[in-house]
């Protein structure tokens, strides 16, 4: 098969570029554990309010300072609407839905996950910047989709914003 010399050059360049992209992805996922939220856990969407995992949504802080936030998503609100966490310490979010698909996105952060009825989404984020963050639903969930929002307040360690 005859291939023009410039074209050969281009093919090697393209191949090299793709290898570089994939290498960047693999190395960050292995070395820095950069991975998309991929928690595997199921739950009955009809008994969320009585299920001990989700019956008391809100923030709990463990002895080591790590925080867990349990959020129930439903048309068209997040429960709780306002979340307070401490800056600089890992926050593990646990989410599920009582009805349709929702999205849970904390604007200006890496927190962005689908919320699916029947499943529990879980991921961990650390917020270094204190302040107020907007939480939006980013998966179409009905006519009130655009009003489904929440608030995250990141407080400086030691109290106060």
């Amino acid at each position, binding site marked *: 098969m005859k291939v023009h010399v410039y074209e050969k050059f*281009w093919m090697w360049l393209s191949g090299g570029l793709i290898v570089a*992209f994939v290498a960047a992805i693999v190395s960050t996922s292995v070395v820095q554990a950069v*991975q*998309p939220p991929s928690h*595997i856990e199921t739950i009955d969407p009809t008994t969320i309010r009585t299920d001990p995992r989700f019956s008391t949504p809100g923030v709990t802080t463990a002895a080591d300072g790590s925080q867990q936030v349990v959020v129930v998503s439903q048309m068209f609100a997040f429960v709780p609407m306002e979340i307070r966490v401490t800056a600089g310490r890992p926050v593990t979010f646990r989410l599920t839905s009582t009805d*349709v698909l929702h999205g849970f996105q904390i604007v200006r952060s890496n927190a*962005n996950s*689908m919320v699916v009825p029947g499943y529990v989404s879980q991921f961990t984020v650390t917020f270094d910047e204190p302040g107020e963050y907007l939480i939006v639903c980013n998966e179409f969930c009905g006519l009130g989709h*655009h009003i489904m929002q929440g608030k995250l307040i990141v407080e400086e360690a030691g109290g106060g914003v």
Partner: protein
Amino acid sequence: MTNRYRLSLAHFTVAVLAFFGGACMAVMQALSRANLPLPLRSAKIYYLSMTAHGVLMALVFTTFFIMGLGYVFARTTLGHDRVNERVGWVSFWIALGGTLLTAGAILSGSSTVLYTFYPPLQAHPTFYIGAALLVVGSWVWCWIMIQSYRSWRREHADEAIPLAMHGMLATVIVWILATVGIAIEVVVMLIPWSLGITRTIDPVLARTFFWWFGHPLVYFWLLPAYAVWYAVLPHVAGGKLFSDRLARVVFVLFILFSTPVGLHHQFSDPGISASWKLVHTFATFTILFPSLLTAFTIIASLEVAGRMRGGKGLFGWIGSLPWGNPLVSCVILAMVTFAVGGWGGAINAAYGMNAMVHNTAWVQGHFHLTVGTASALTFMGTSYWLLPRLTGRALFFKPAAQVQPYLWVIGMVLFGIVNHVTGLMGMPRRIYDPSYAGSLVAAGWAEWTTISAVGGVIVFVSAMMYVLVMVGTVLWGDRVEAPAIEYARPLEPEEPLPSVWDRVGMWTVVAAALVVIAYAYPILSLISMERFGSPGFKPF
């Protein structure tokens, strides 16, 4: 004498009508997103029209256009009597019937589930049944394409497949592999559930089948465009195809790697392991390769054309290309836009970076530059080239056809870039009102959405010019002797010989094996878990 292209023209008519409907919905949405006070503006109409826009543009316009183009390619490259016209009409009416059922369900307000129709949002059963019929119609078309090719092959055993048809066969195979996923989702899961035969549905399993289909769908849109870039553009531009062989390599790579990639749309889904998402990421990046090859071959072919037309110097050939020819300008602009959109796609597919852009306005910015420009603008250029050849009428109001592609790109770039930017700023996609109860962050998006609305209006004007030229040509175009439909010759003087890259049957088997490898384990592990299904919801 009846027109031998009646079947294709019927398909193009449906495509242009769907495009017209989709464009009217689109301008309404662009203005609404900018929070402009419009009469009748409401969330209900916004989300309904968004469903209609997605279905009409992404599924109806594209599918009918591609089927019509397939018949033209098959007739002109394989021979007019090889296409089974009668079965073709059966396919047409099934697909059209399905389209009308689905469109009716959407317009009645009972099926505002958007064109991704993720359960447990539940549409009216006719929405799903209509969509299934559209796919069944397209399968009959696939059968006709394959039969036409096999009949030609029996008498031309020692010839390479005509290149345009090679690209169309790749399209057909990608479509067959892809639609297995959607058929399982719609027929096994959604239709029984919407009829009340089954009570609940697993949303993650449904999404997995959807994206088995949803990503190769984009190559179903792209491959016919590539076939035009390779097999038509160099000739119309006045030159030759730089490399016939590499074009075939490109089409085969798409057959192989279009489908085992869908999990990159489910990066942030629970229930699917990160390692399988990573496997699909590899296949996704592999498929950048044939597009990079295409960029080289097409630009090299354009350089050949520019020089054959007398262009001199390092860049002089660019100026001597026929920029006033609407096919040439459409394709070049489509390619340049695709270069930008493609990089955005690599970011979407980047396992780690996806969380920055998932379900934000970035996504609609991305696909309006790719399918909305790379494919759609190529299809418009193709129709300017084809219509006089199919109808024996000169283009009506040709200046509109010459200006329209430039307007399209200006509008789409405004719309697309703004949505990329607001997406990075965190604005979600698919929202009726971006103000979020006076949130300060959201206020920062507002000035940008106004620019995207301006872009949307420019695209709409361009879309109406296209529709005007199409309708005008058929009804009032001057009668001329139909120019011949001719394809690009390769630059190498010798005829292309059949090679391993022409063995589409063999590549199809390999591709099917790759689909099994990519999906067997993720689907088996999903269905072997203890899962709790969801009943349907209709919050619209």
